[in-house]
């Protein structure tokens, strides 16, 4: 399908605007700013040394990894239940299930964080309802802590977990399940020995996707963490906007990008990224 001669050049020219825009206004700013991590305040790897010497830096990294791991596990569990229900639903019910996944996906992340604040804060709907019902005497600390962050993040990530798992579950031949049942397997055995292993590629793809999206997540943790529980994205913003410590901020940004690219590279055999995003779009 290679174009030849003048026509070939024409096709390449079509790619040029997007390529030039990405190079000049996407790649260049990122490379330039990441380079600051080895030049500011002085040339060298001093900023990276802080990973091993600074307790604050380590705390942020550990908090982020812990929250991301919990978020990924919960999003996979809940997303799996939904994807499983969609796969086995009747065509009419399937439309409604898919809607329940896609509508939250496209609603502004700010609106969703706002909804959680409304529900979970001290005088929020959940605490008020529980107090009026006499079930608690003191408001529960539901938000502006790690719990609030995880509730909001899992809510954001479940749709991203569902889509790759759904894509892989749709390839499972339903006759296999019926056959296993017919051969005397219990419902649980069919799930554990037939359905679950066959859906494993989808679970891994979903896990990678949710984990890398969680690592650099800014808005929801910033709103629901209330400035007390810091994850890397908010920490980077704090270093740069408030403390003007460019070297430290860009060091963490570099680590973030490296962590994401390494995760993708490790799983690139199992995960076809383009297919995931194709399914998501």
């Amino acid at each position, binding site marked *: 399908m*290679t174009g030849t001669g003048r*026509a070939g050049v024409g*096709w*390449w020219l*079509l*790619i040029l*605007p*997007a*390529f030039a*825009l*990405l190079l000049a*206004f*996407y*790649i*260049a*700013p*990122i490379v330039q*700013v990441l380079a*600051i991590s080895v030049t500011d305040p002085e040339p060298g790897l001093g900023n990276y040394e802080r990973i091993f010497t600074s307790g604050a830096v380590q705390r942020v990294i550990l908090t982020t990894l812990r929250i991301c791991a919990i978020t990924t596990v919960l999003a996979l*569990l809940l997303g799996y*239940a*939904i994807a*499983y*229900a969609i796969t086995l639903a*009747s065509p009419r019910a399937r439309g409604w*299930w898919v809607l*329940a996944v896609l*509508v*939250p996906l*496209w*609603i*502004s992340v*700010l609106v*969703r964080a*706002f*909804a959680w*604040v*409304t529900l979970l*804060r001290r005088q929020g*709907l959940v605490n008020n309802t529980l107090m009026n019902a006499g079930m608690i005497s003191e408001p529960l600390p539901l938000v502006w802590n790690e719990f609030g962050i995880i509730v909001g993040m899992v809510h954001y990530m479940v*749709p991203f977990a569902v889509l790759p798992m759904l894509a892989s579950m749709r390839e499972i031949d*339903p006759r296999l399940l*019926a056959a296993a*049942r017919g051969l005397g397997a219990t419902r*649980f055995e069919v*799930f554990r020995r037939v359905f679950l292993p066959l859906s494993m590629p989808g679970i891994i793809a979903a896990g990678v996707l949710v984990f*890398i999206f969680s*690592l*650099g997540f800014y*808005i929801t943790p910033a709103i629901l963490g209330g400035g007390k529980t810091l994850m890397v*994205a908010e920490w980077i*913003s704090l270093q740069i*906007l408030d403390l003007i410590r460019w070297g430290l901020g860009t060091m963490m*940004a570099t680590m*973030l*990008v490296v962590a*994401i690219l390494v995760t993708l590279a490790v799983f690139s055999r199992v995960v076809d*990224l383009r297919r995931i*995003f194709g399914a998501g*779009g």
Partner: protein
Amino acid sequence: MDGTYRPGTVGRGLAWATAAYLVLPILIILPVALTDQRYLSLPEDGISFQHFRTVLTSPEWLGSIWQSFTIAVAATVLSVTAGTLCAIGCWRISRRATELIRVLMLLPLIIPSIVYAIGLYRYFGPLGLLDRFLGVVIAHGVTGIPYVVITVSTALATFDPRLEQAARGMGASLSQTLRWVILPRIAPGIFSGAIFAFIHSWDELVMVLFIASRDVFTLPRRIWDGINENLDPAMAAVAVLLILFTLLLLMADRALRRRSEG
């Protein structure tokens, strides 16, 4: 599926609970926006539209809505133009030769926007693009390109390349082939990409926090300030309006897809 195998009670229960967890918190905003109280709460003595009135008569909110809208339209034009041409080029040239470009296109979807935002903060300073309409349009437009490339590539996957070869064989120039043969066939994919690129810009906050401050004050930026400073029912009204707008866009997308399929 043929109905011989259905999920068990545990699976179904968990799926319903998850669906409720996904949808109910979003729905709860509607009664809160209709509250008759002056603080965030459910309506007590009756519903009231006062908070919608507050938002729709406030010059600040209307100004931000208008600014976000014009930025999103301009950014969408940029993303759709560059993205569509790029997808067509990649489709026609061999896969291997365009591998680098395809990988490049995925980067904005993978790299966290905080990293890009601090990059722009530094990069736009000397260019005089900080706190400028053009600066935000470029940032949103460039990061919107991948959405268009994906939807248009999906549309092109079902397009028979022999049609294009036939047109060229009969003497059509490249631009004629594009205009009369390729573009009409992939129009639904382009519209879909445009809707996603628009939502991407319309909702974007992280970049705006860094590259805009006073003159450019988009809707997400105003909501962000509202959440952090004063939580009042007007915020819920804004949220409801935003949800309705998003649903409208998604319905437009669905209708377009259904028409192109049927």
